[in-house]
C-alpha cells in the first residue's frame, strides 16, 4: 500500500515546472469543470444556447451595415457579411473566453481555498467550455455560406489548427490575468477595455491587406491576427500573408507558455490571498 505514492510538501519559491503527471491524473476533473461551465452557462435563460449564435450574428449585421455599407470597408474576396462573420466567430470566442478565464479563479475561490487540484484547470477549463459556443457559431457560418453560395474547400481541414491557436491565445492570456486578478482586482476592469481595443488591432473588421506592408509585422504580434486570418483562409479561401500568419501563430504558442509559467509561479500564494 505504501510506497505506491509518495509526496513531500515543502516551501516553494520562484519558477515552478509544470506537473504534467499530476495534470494527467486529474484529467477527468478538467472534463467535469468544462462540463459544469457549459451546463450552467445558459441555465435559467429564456433563449439558452441561442445566445451563442445571437452575439456574432448581431455583430455581423451591425458591422456589415456600419463598416461595409456606411464606411465602405471591403473584404478581400468573399461577401462582406461572410468575411465579417468568419472573423467575428473566433474573435467573440476569444473575448468571451478571456473574460471568463480572467475571472475564473476569483469566481471559484471556494475551490481554490478548500481543495487541492491542479489550479491550471480553472482558467483553462473556462476557456475550453466556450468551444461549444464557437461550434454553434461555425454551424451558423455554414448556413450563411449556403445562403451566399460560397463553397467550402478542403482548406477547411486546416481549421483545427487555428481553433487550437485561438485556444492557446485565450488560455495564455487568461492564465496570466486570472493569476493577477487574485492579487489585483484591477484586472476585472482592465479586461473589457483590452477586449474593446483588441477588436481594432485585430483584422476582424478589415482585411490585413488594408495595412501597409511595413506595419503588418506589428499586427502579427497580436496572436488573434493569425487566428482570424486562418479562419478566413480555411473557411472562405481568402489569400493571406504567410509571414504574418506564421509570426502570429508563434506568438500564441509563446503566450501560452508564458501564461503557464507565470501562473505556476503565482499559484502557491493563491489560497492565502484570494
Amino acid at each position, binding site marked *: *500500500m*505504501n*510506497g*505506491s*505514492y*509518495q*509526496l*513531500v*510538501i*515543502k*516551501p*516553494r519559491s520562484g519558477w515552478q515546472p509544470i506537473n504534467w503527471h499530476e495534470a494527467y491524473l*486529474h484529467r*477527468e*476533473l478538467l*472534463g*467535469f469543470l468544462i*462540463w*459544469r461551465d457549459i*451546463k*450552467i452557462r445558459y*441555465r*435559467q435563460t429564456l433563449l439558452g444556447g441561442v445566445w451563442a449564435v445571437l452575439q456574432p450574428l448581431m455583430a455581423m449585421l451591425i458591422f456589415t451595415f456600419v463598416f461595409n455599407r456606411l464606411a465602405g470597408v471591403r473584404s478581400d474576396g468573399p461577401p462582406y457579411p461572410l468575411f465579417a462573420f468568419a472573423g467575428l466567430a473566433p474573435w467573440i470566442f476569444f473575448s468571451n473566453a478571456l473574460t471568463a478565464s480572467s475571472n475564473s479563479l476569483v469566481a471559484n475561490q*471556494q*475551490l*481554490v*481555498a*478548500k*481543495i*487541492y*487540484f491542479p489550479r491550471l484547470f480553472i482558467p483553462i477549463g473556462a476557456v475550453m467550455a466556450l468551444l461549444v459556443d464557437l461550434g454553434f457559431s461555425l454551424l451558423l457560418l455554414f448556413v450563411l455560406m449556403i445562403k451566399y453560395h460560397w463553397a467550402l474547400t478542403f482548406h477547411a481541414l486546416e481549421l483545427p489548427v487555428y481553433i487550437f491557436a485561438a485556444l492557446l491565445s485565450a488560455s495564455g492570456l487568461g492564465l496570466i490575468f486570472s493569476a493577477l486578478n*487574485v*492579487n*489585483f*482586482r*484591477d484586472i476585472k476592469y482592465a479586461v473589457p477595455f483590452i477586449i474593446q481595443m483588441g477588436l481594432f488591432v485585430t483584422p476582424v473588421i478589415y482585411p490585413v491587406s488594408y495595412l501597409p506592408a511595413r506595419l503588418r509585422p506589428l499586427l502579427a504580434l497580436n496572436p488573434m491576427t493569425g487566428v482570424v486570418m486562418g479562419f478566413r483562409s480555411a473557411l472562405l479561401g481568402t489569400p493571406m500573408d504567410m509571414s504574418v500568419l506564421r509570426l502570429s501563430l508563434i506568438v500564441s504558442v509563446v503566450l501560452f507558455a508564458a501564461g503557464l509559467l507565470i501562473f505556476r509561479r503565482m499559484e*502557491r500564494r493563491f*489560497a*492565502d*490571498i484570494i
Partner: protein
Amino acid sequence: MPPIIEFRNVSKEYVLGGAVRQQETLRELLMRKLRLGGKVEVEAAVKQRFWALRDVSFNVNEGEVLGIIGRNGAGKSTLLKILSRITDPTTGSIEIRGRLASLLEVGTGFHPELTGRENIFLNGAILGMRRSEIVSKFDEIVAFSEVEKFLDTPVKRYSSGMYVRLAFSVAAHLNPEILVVDEVLAVGDMSFQKKCLGKMSEVSQGGRTVIFVSHNMAAVQNLCQRGVVLSQGKVLFNGGAEDAIQQYLHSVAGTAEQGHIIDLLNAPRTAKKIRPRLLDSMEFFTDGDVAMPGTMPMGAGLKMRIRFNFPDPVESFDVGIGFDNVYGQRVFTAHSCFEPERDGGTHVGPQTFVCNIPSLTLVPGEYVLRIWLDANGREVDLVNEAARLQVIESDYYGTGRVPWNGVFVLKHHWYSEKANGVSSNS
C-alpha cells in the same frame, strides 16, 4: 515501517496586513516598486506578521485515527491546509506516503444551479474520485444521502439539511489511504449526525489512516486513538486521545485565568452590611483527587474543597454552592443542609469542608458559582461570583453525540413496546 505521514518542523507565517486588506491594488504595487508615496503605509502593513504554526513535528502511523484538537486559532486549520497542499508551509516539510484526500468543508464545489445528480459527479471529481468510481458508488451515495426523490432538482432548491446530507454522502464515499477531515460532523440533524459518525468509525476500522480535527471532544473520544493538541501554533501534547483531551481541557482552562485554588477571602462581596470575611478559599478536584482548574468534561466527578474560618465558636453551619448558567438561571444548588449525616458539636477556627458530586451532568457551557456560608441558621458570608466552571462536551451517552439544548443530561433508555406483547430493546 516508516510513518505514513511525517511532519518535520512545519511552520507557517501569515502577513496580517495582507489578510486585512485582501488585495494590494496595482497602484500600491507600482508605488512600492517605484518607491513613490504610500510607502510608509505599505510597510506598516507588511510588518504585521504572525506564525500560525511554529515548528510542528509529529508522525502519523498507518491505520491510525489521529485527532487534532485545539482552540480556535491554535493552527488546526492551517495545518490541514498545508497537509492538503492548498497552501505551502513557510518552512519545514511534510512527507506523505499514500494517497490523501481531504475534506475541509462538505459541499465544496457544489454548484447551486446543478441538480443533485450532477453535483454528485462534479463534487466527486473535485474530491479526486474517478468517474468510474463515482458511477459504481452512485447508488450507495444516493441511498446514504436520503435525497433520492430530489436527484433531478437543482440543489439551490434543497433545504440546508438535504444539501449537507448529499454533500457529506459524496465525501463519505471517498476511498483514499489517508483521509483528512475537518469538523464535518457538526452538520445535519441528529439522526444524520449519527449516521456520519457511524460512517467515520467504519472508515477508521477499515484500516485507513484518518486525521480528524474537531472541537467536539465526544467525537474525538469516540473515534480517535491518539491526539495532538495544538496551542498557539505549537504542539502542546502528542499522545493517547484521553490524555490529549485532558491536556486540551487544561489549555482551555488556562485562559480563564483561574487556577484550581480560588481565593475567596479577597473576592469582592456585594453585601451592604460590613461583615468579617469568613470564606477563605475553594479548590476544584476531579473525583480522582487531581487538581482541576475549573474545566471538566460533562458527567465527570467534581470535588470542591472549601476552607473558611470561624473566629467565634458556632453550634451549626452550612455551606451552599449555586450553579448559574450564562443566562443567569440557577440550574443547580448544592447545599450541605441536604446532607443527612453531619458531625455535631461546636466548631471554631479554620474549617475544611468538601462537597463531592460523583457525576456532574450539566450540559456543556460556562457556569458561575455562587458560594455562601450560614452559621447558627443565619447567612454570615456570601461571594456572588466566586468561580467559573467550564463544562465541556464528553461522550456521556457513549454514542459520540452530545445534547445541544436542555440543562442537564440523565442516563435514560428507550425501547419499543408492541401492542400485544412485550418486545424490548435496551
